[in-house]
């Protein structure tokens, strides 16, 4: 009884207020970290981090080209990974021989850090945007395939039976049952895919990129421009959060039929 009362109070505070509170505590935490001698080098004062925008965008004119270059690699790489990953996942779930042959490959490559195979990609694709896109595509492809595959094989058996007895053939079964039943997993796959695409950015841009958020973070770290570097790191994080917000919007529209526990 007591517990439900507590939960109610927490639920009464609006979401945006929680977000503000979360942000405020982060700023406070940052403040202490920037004052503490052992962590002050890693956490420059926030005012300097804000100034870094001016340095990078206005004085040096690097920021927006960096954002553009990275978003292009992430966008195209992710899209290709998605376009290949979803059909492969369905094929694996539908045809067992495909699964038995491809699944070990995926499990094998999945646990290798992208940084390790970047040189091999560069050998094949050359230095530049193409290699970056390939690296991001591989990483997202693996994540998306594994997630969607799980979704397809978890489709409720009785739904398939129900469709069959109502007269569904293989095509109808796929289009009208398996596919819609898998949409929540496809959305999760997109979410994980975007996150993987962003985290692979540094590895991808270590292929001799001339611009990009990941490449710039590495370059700035080498000349100890910590405030600038921190600014770029924050930007990557914020891009991830924005992508998540957009995705949530689509998720609500596409999978509102799902039975969800209210948390």
């Amino acid at each position, binding site marked *: 009884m007591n517990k439900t009362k507590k939960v109610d109070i927490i639920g009464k505070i609006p979401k945006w207020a929680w977000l503000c509170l979360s942000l405020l505590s982060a700023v406070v935490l940052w403040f202490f970290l920037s004052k503490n001698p052992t962590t002050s080098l890693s956490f420059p004062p926030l005012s300097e981090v804000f100034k870094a925008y001016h340095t990078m965008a206005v004085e040096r004119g690097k920021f927006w080209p960096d954002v553009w270059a990275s978003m292009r690699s992430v966008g195209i790489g992710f899209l290709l990974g998605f376009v290949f990953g979803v059909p492969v996942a369905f094929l694996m779930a539908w045809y067992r021989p495909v699964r038995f042959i491809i699944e070990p490959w995926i499990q094998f490559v999945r646990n290798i850090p992208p940084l390790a195979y970047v040189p091999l990609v560069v050998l094949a694709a050359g230095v530049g945007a193409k290699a970056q896109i390939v690296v991001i595509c591989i990483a997202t492809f693996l994540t998306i395939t594994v997630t969607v595959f799980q979704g397809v094989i978890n489709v409720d058996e009785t*739904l398939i039976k*129900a469709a069959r*007895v*109502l*007269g569904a053939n293989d095509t*109808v079964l796929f289009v009208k049952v398996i596919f*819609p039943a898998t949409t929540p997993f496809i959305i999760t796959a997109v979410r994980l895919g975007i996150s993987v695409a962003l985290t692979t950015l540094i590895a991808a841009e270590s292929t001799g990129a001339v611009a990009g958020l990941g490449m710039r973070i590495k370059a700035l770290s080498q000349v100890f421009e910590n405030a600038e570097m921190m600014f770029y790191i924050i930007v990557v994080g914020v891009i991830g959060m924005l992508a998540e917000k957009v995705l949530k919007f689509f998720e609500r529209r596409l*999978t509102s*039929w799902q039975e969800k526990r209210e948390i």
Partner: protein
Amino acid sequence: MAGEERNLIPKVQIKDVKKIYEGRNGQTIALNGANLDIYDNEFICVVGPSGCGKSTLLNIIAGLHEATSGEVLVDGVKVEGTGVDRGVVFQQYALFPWLTVKKNVMFGLNLKKGMTDAEREETALKYIKMVGLEKFVNSYPKELSGGMKQRVAIARAYAVNPSLLLMDEPFGALDAQTRTQLQTELLKTWEEEKKTCFFITHDVEEAILLASRVVVMSARPGRIKEVIDIDIPYPRNQETKMLPRFTELKNYIWQNVYKEYLEVQK
């Protein structure tokens, strides 16, 4: 059963059906030679201990599973795969959660040729009305109670107009009150729009209330032990349970089935 009816070709002929599952721990004989003839518009209820192969038998008639040996004929034709002449209602409702009530009921209708969209919708609405859910036409399954979900599943099965309705413990997951309500509704529906019904339950009272014949199955390996004519005339309702004949039949079947339960525990 009257002698002249015996001369008709049975609606369903179950001929020496065996089903053996190959598992890691060797073979499991789920069904060991089931034989049964079901006639047009009969209401058959199958009772028996869990693991007696009653669901297996239903799945074989539906064409969802294949018999290891033996065969099932429906209207004289051997069952090979599923067909819209045989509708199925599952215990777990099996509604498509991304479709509204109306679209769920229309699922099978949409796959039928020679119907206009307007006719499909009209048919769907007719059956939704029959199960009393006209107010929930555009609701999603998650917004419905268990009893309502099962009503939608029954409407969905009826909508494609199968001549044989297979029901696998359809009320097994419902509370006692909803259960009696749905039993009464099903009786009414069946009397209005006659179909041959094959209904699995573990509830002996439910079986006697609904069935024209009750089939008692024996424990593993499953076989049909006894078929009992329920000589209580239709229309029946919940008051039918008060009849002395009902109690008599119940006691008789209970003893039979109960013995099988003991058999399983050995």
